[in-house]
């Protein structure tokens, strides 16, 4: 009798868990999945690509970064490896200090019908390979510049 009862409870628990699961799958996951696309893929979606939560990954197109430190508006163009599929990105807030041309980035946000991708977060792709920073862009040089600036003012 006792064993039967415990088994019943186990069944109830399992059914409960599966039920919750089904509910979750149905209601939650579908709408909250964020697709990872490259600019080329996003453009290829056409209308279906607009106003969806997307992670867009590509490279910063050289010469397109505009950062206004008064209004905190950051605008740049993300390009695909093919170099022709471009998407304009707008985000609020300062770019990472070392943000520069041709760097790999991932932005999360929505692609608006005005063909501007509104980004809510910006991540820089870290490559594991070691590359020496360019002169003037490593910490030592920046500290030097900064101290010169401070002594002249």
């Amino acid at each position: 009798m006792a064993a039967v009862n415990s088994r019943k409870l186990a069944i109830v628990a399992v059914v409960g868990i599966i039920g919750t699961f089904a509910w979750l799958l149905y209601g939650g996951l579908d709408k909250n999945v964020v697709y990872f696309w490259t600019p080329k893929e996003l453009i290829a979606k056409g209308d279906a690509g607009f106003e969806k939560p997307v992670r867009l990954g590509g490279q910063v197109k050289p010469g397109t970064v505009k950062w206004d430190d008064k209004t905190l508006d950051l605008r740049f163009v993300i390009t695909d490896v093919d170099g022709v599929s471009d998407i304009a990105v707008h985000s609020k807030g300062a770019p990472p200090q070392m943000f520069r041309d041709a760097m790999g980035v991932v932005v999360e946000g929505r692609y608006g019908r005005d063909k501007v991708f509104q980004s809510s977060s910006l991540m820089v792709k870290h490559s594991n390979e070691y590359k020496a920073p360019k002169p003037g862009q490593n910490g030592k040089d920046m500290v030097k510049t900064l101290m010169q600036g401070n002594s002249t003012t």
Partner: protein
Amino acid sequence: MFFIPFAIRRGRRDWVALAYSAVYTNFLLITVATVAMVWALVTHDFSVSYVSQVGSKATPLFYTIISLWGALEGSILFWAWVLAMYAAAVVWINANRPGNLVPYAATALMGISLFFGILLIGPADPFKSVFPVPLDGPGPNPLLQNHILMAVHPPLLYLGYVGMSVPFAFAVGAMLSGEVLTDDWIKITRRWTLSSWGLLSAAIIAGMWWSYEVLGWGGYWAWDPVENASFMPWLTATAFLHSVMVQERRGMLRLWNLNLVVGTFVLTILGTFLTRSGIISSVHAFTTGTIGYYFLAFIAVTLLVALALVAGTSGRLKDENRFDAPASRETVFLLNNLFLTAFMFTVLLGTLFPLVAESVRGIKVSVGEPFFNRMSLPMIVALLFLMGVGPAMPWKRTSMAELKGKLLPPLIGATVMLVIAVAFGARNFYALVTFTFVGFSGASNKFEIWYGIRARHRAHGENYLTALFRLMAGNRRRYGGYVAHLGILTVALGIAASSTFRTETEATLKPGDSMTVSGHTVRLKQVWGREEVQRSVIGATLEIVKNGTVTGTIEPKMNFYPTSQQPVPTPQVKSSIAGDLYANLQAFRPDGSSATIRLIYEPMVPWIWFGGMIVVLGSVLSILPTRSRA
């Protein structure tokens, strides 16, 4: 050097004493290996592959030592060492126990140890020799040498994570030896489970703290796969801590408990797989090698063996009692288990979905925070509520009259918290429910302790403080549990308050300019640079201004490590019991003429860390042996 333990380990198990000394030898040899590695790190022996990977002459000694767990190979070695230590301790403590339970459990532990041994001679060999020997190395990952919590979070996590193999080993041992019919294995492993749980809780909190202090985004939890990896076994272990009481008190849920123990262990291995295999890119994933396949194979083998054992045992395992009444503590524990397990499955689903989607359908997706928040909040508030109901409910059955008296203080607590939350401007449904239930359960648990104190005061005429200490000492387990509840509730309060009332702003300031976030004003004094041994530092000094006078400074920085293209943000936090003022240097003009600052005010964040300490206190209380009662 590494072949010896494995050769010994495969020795004859029928000579149990011999096998036990093999367990000690295993510990000894892995200790030698670990010490050798630390020595190699400290002496900068770059002929050792691991040292050439994480070592650097410029790194301070402290960070050199802790880089033992700063990359894949070293962390696997450290893991193996902790496991060997636990195995030796288990055998040492239980060596004289008759029966086959302990030998079988030791075998299971050695089996796990064997797996990590294979990793260490295969895909994660830290002692490969490097030729030609480099003159210097790159040093540890900058993110991992930027904060002192790196010395705290990983060891705690390993101790907690690996500790879960002890109850697992005993569960396997119990099933193999047939001693599963007695509940001895549960009694033997109680302290192990509790201490591992306490360590894991502390590790999770320390990880949140690290992320808050280092990553510069002002948050502490993002449902990142690596966070989930530590959280899932915590959920099942928490479920186990509760349901095991039902087994001890009432001889029920035996099969279920076996499943929870197996599940918890498999989740720790799965977590290691997720974080160490490179399948998910993060600060924890060090490399993309073949190690993932080893883990998958080990998970598959473990699941097959354990589930076969559980299936074989299930026929013999009978519960002694059944549930008497729907309103009883057993029922609350059952619901607690149901929610915790469902919670774990939700997190598991959200964590694994992207991996499955990519490998099956070839699409790259991620499951965002909204999914986790929406799915977990109902379960979290349900658990917060049960935390208040459970302690008030007696075992077996309860009468409404009894319950009414006991539920009065919690209801008052709930009302007070609700009023406070509304007064402060909380309008979000879940935030309000969370505050209400925290008030409810907080009052319930405090009153349970209070009833105990009052009873002692009346019976023995002790003053209240003495009564509190004697009460805690007399029934450590029960009151340790209530203290842990209060800790969790404090954490919940901190999380609810900081996420509901957080305000942030970002601005570019010239020296002399100021910015304000919810009543806190800071003024930029200077942007400066400084050279340190292993890094270059650029910082902004901000004065905290209150009513026209400077009351302090806050100094967010950026650390530039020579091996990293990206500077490591180093926010500064000014904490008070009411909340944190959090400043991060986002960007600066190279000439120092301006700095872009993100300023965040987050109420009650320190309560999360403080609550974590209360949880640890609660588990320590429950672990300490109960002195014979006066």
